């Protein structure tokens, strides 16, 4: 397709339910990309599978809709072959923390410069409402008729423990704030993850917009909080219940994965010698 103007819009028909948190996520994402003044052709949006990942169809940038649970390795491969691209991975709580749970640990510890956006609606929505790894305990659904007996995963605690250098919690109810968080995450030099609390109007009757409205508070309003302090971050990230902090919870600097690969200091992989390689010395040894 032709490169669109920098509004990232396209005419594909959106299939989310009215009131879905994804509408807020897509608006915030487009707005962040505009703020950053990125060109559509320099961005790759990699998608998982699920309601969250339908987003790749509705943003006019380079896209790759991959497999359930596998968006993180996909994004890393794309990035390593051409690290000039801005690579954003989008998935849901099921794909990223159940099916593909292993990948986030390693992407985070690599500090590879990609951004992971989690549309965390605490339910499997595309398959019509099963409990997910972030569903609250006692969540009643098809496979859990008497409520889940597992404790939920805290996605950001997992990411933080794995060495992520940027973790943030967003909320679909605050589109402006979400956009600012996305812009910071995408421009962060290293691995960044944004867990977006995003209501599913069809299948999650617990964690609704109203539920979060009365609980979330913005971390930026807390002048005493130092997001570079890992100890404070571990404490803050675990807060849940009546008071849920949103905003950037931790930001640190460290060498990115790409910067530690000598070959990539000469340029992107795709831009390097694409002609016939002389392999004589390999044969002779």
């Amino acid at each position, binding site marked *: 397709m032709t*490169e669109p103007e920098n509004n990232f819009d396209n005419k594909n028909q959106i299939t989310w339910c009215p009131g879905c948190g994804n509408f807020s996520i897509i608006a915030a994402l487009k707005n962040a990309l505009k703020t950053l003044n990125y060109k559509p052709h320099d961005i790759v949006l990699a998608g998982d599978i699920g309601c969250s990942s339908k987003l790749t169809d509705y943003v*006019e940038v*380079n896209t790759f809709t991959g497999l359930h649970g596998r968006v993180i*390795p996909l994004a890393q491969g794309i990035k390593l072959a051409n690290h000039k691209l801005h690579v954003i991975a989008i998935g849901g709580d099921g794909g990223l923390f159940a099916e593909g749970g292993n990948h986030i640990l*390693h992407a985070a510890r690599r500090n590879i410069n990609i951004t992971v956006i989690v549309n965390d609606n605490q339910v499997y929505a595309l398959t019509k409402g099963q409990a997910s790894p972030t569903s609250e305990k006692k969540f009643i659904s098809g496979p859990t008729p008497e409520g889940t007996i597992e404790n939920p995963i805290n996605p950001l605690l997992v990411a933080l423990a794995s060495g992520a250098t940027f973790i943030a919690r967003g909320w679909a109810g605050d589109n402006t704030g979400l956009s600012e968080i996305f812009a910071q995450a995408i421009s962060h030099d290293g691995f960044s993850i944004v867990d977006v609390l995003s209501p599913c109007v069809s299948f999650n009757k617990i964690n609704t917009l109203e539920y979060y409205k009365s609980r979330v508070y913005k971390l930026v309003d807390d002048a005493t909080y130092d997001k570079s302090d890992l100890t404070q971050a571990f404490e803050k990230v675990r807060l849940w219940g009546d008071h849920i902090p949103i905003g950037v919870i931790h930001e640190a600097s460290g060498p990115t994965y790409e910067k530690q690969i000598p*070959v990539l200091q000469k340029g992107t*992989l795709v831009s390097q*010698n694409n002609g016939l390689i002389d392999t004589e010395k390999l044969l002779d040894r």
Partner: protein
Amino acid sequence: MESQNIVVAIGGVAGAGIMESGHLLAKYALASGLFSFMASEYPSLIRGGHNFAMVHITENETNSLTQKIDILVALNEQTVKLHERELKEGSAIIYDSDIIELEKVDGITIQGVPLTTIAKESGGEIIRNTVAIGAAIGLLKGNFSILEETLKSTFEKKGQEVIDMNVRAALKGYRFTQGAGSSFDLSIKHKQIDSQRILLNGNDAICIGAIRSGLKFAAIYPMTPVTSILDYLAAEQNNFNLVVKEPEDEISAIIMTIGASYSGARSLTATSGGGFCLMTEGLGLAGMAEIPLVVVEGMRSGPSSAMPTKTEQSDLDFVLYAGHGEFPRIVLAPGDPTECIEATFNAFNLADKYQLPVIILTDKYLASSLYTINKPDMSEWKIDRGKITTSGNETYSRYELEEDGVSSRLLPGSPGAVTHADSYEHDALGRDSDDPTIRISMMEKRMKKINNLAKELPEPILYGEKDAEITIFGWGSNKSIILDALKLLDKEGIKANYLHLLYVMPFPAYEVAKIFDHTKAALIVENNYSGQMTRYIRSLTGRRITNKLLKFDGRPFLPEEIVKKVKSILNTPLKAQADIKEKND
């Protein structure tokens, strides 16, 4: 006088340098103008298990093992116990007399050498194997200066001290046995050196082919027998501008590889059967999204963990059909390191040209055995990246319906347009669609790539005379073993030929069916239980091969086993053969 044909075997505990000793002997043979073939057996442990390497040294080209041992070099007692029955009249045992006591055996030269003492005197117990190799060359009345040069080149990178120590150790071992075994009459000659000959194993050959083709990215999770591909490529990263990664699992390996390929880098992953199980979802993704992908599947014993370090050809069915749904793929089964280089080079061209997954099927035996080959002339090989572009415009659509089923691939990052890849069924622009008309056109687009591809692939090669008493069918690593069997059969006046199946999918059904028209008797040789290629041939040609030589004990075939089978088939009266055929049908 019979030409040179010597087998030296060396065994000891894992960690004693058994593989290195085998390499050293092979290098000595190469430097003496001789051919050598080395295969090794090792258990899935790092220290303490029994490691064993056999080096078959010959004057004329041979690339297989044989049913004998001329010199058994025993660094421990277990080696003698496990292998003494393979010795025959005239063989010799060289053993470490510091730690092993051996009784005299009639007809066998028992040559004790104080390997431990000599090694310690020369620089350390660790070089017991070098003393032993010196002793073996001494017993064979070889040339020490060739061994010295071999040691120098082997330890070049480790510095003068290591070279000196090894040369001292080898010389002491050499002098100890030189002329000692008067009852041992084998001797190793040296001939004119052919500088075009090299030693190479299948894994290194794959790496060379990949690098030659412009490989840029590899993500490989360690697994026997392909791990050395990971190590080799990683070591060459800075020399050839590669990025080589050891990811968290095989799923990540294949998906990262697909991602890198989407960005435009020639990309590779490698695994064995167990890892390939995890990769199957990625295989389907590459098929659906039309991403060029090259996967090496080095087979080993299965199912499940089975015998992890033993060879087998039991994943043919698996790689042919792995994945759900229908998508085109290419499967190549190279038979030796020469074919590994070329097949890998071609795999990258084919993957790019047809935008689909290509699987290179090898096995533990081919992956890790050392062959003597002629340096391939790659000067005429051309890189073909297919329909790839970095300039988009308003009319660009990723999955445009083209006559040949292959659409232009715009690399992300190209100004002027964006590109889409999709695991869902999609329209020409790459948008999700379950419209029946679009589905039909897109399925047909992908599947018809196979038709053009089939026309391009080379015909299978028939080795030997067309007019033979028996045609042997085989694939992959059995090639060199069967070719050596043909030579043995020829010596006995039996005319046999060999049909080698390298391009397995798409299958050259017409050409293979034609071969059957000229076949008087047929035999198929496979390293598996059920005859997977036999079934595949029957399903695509309607021809049934009833004579099967199958082996699934984790060990490679020996040419002698094939000779025996051929003779038993040819000695079976035709009436009986027909009866067997009827029974099998």
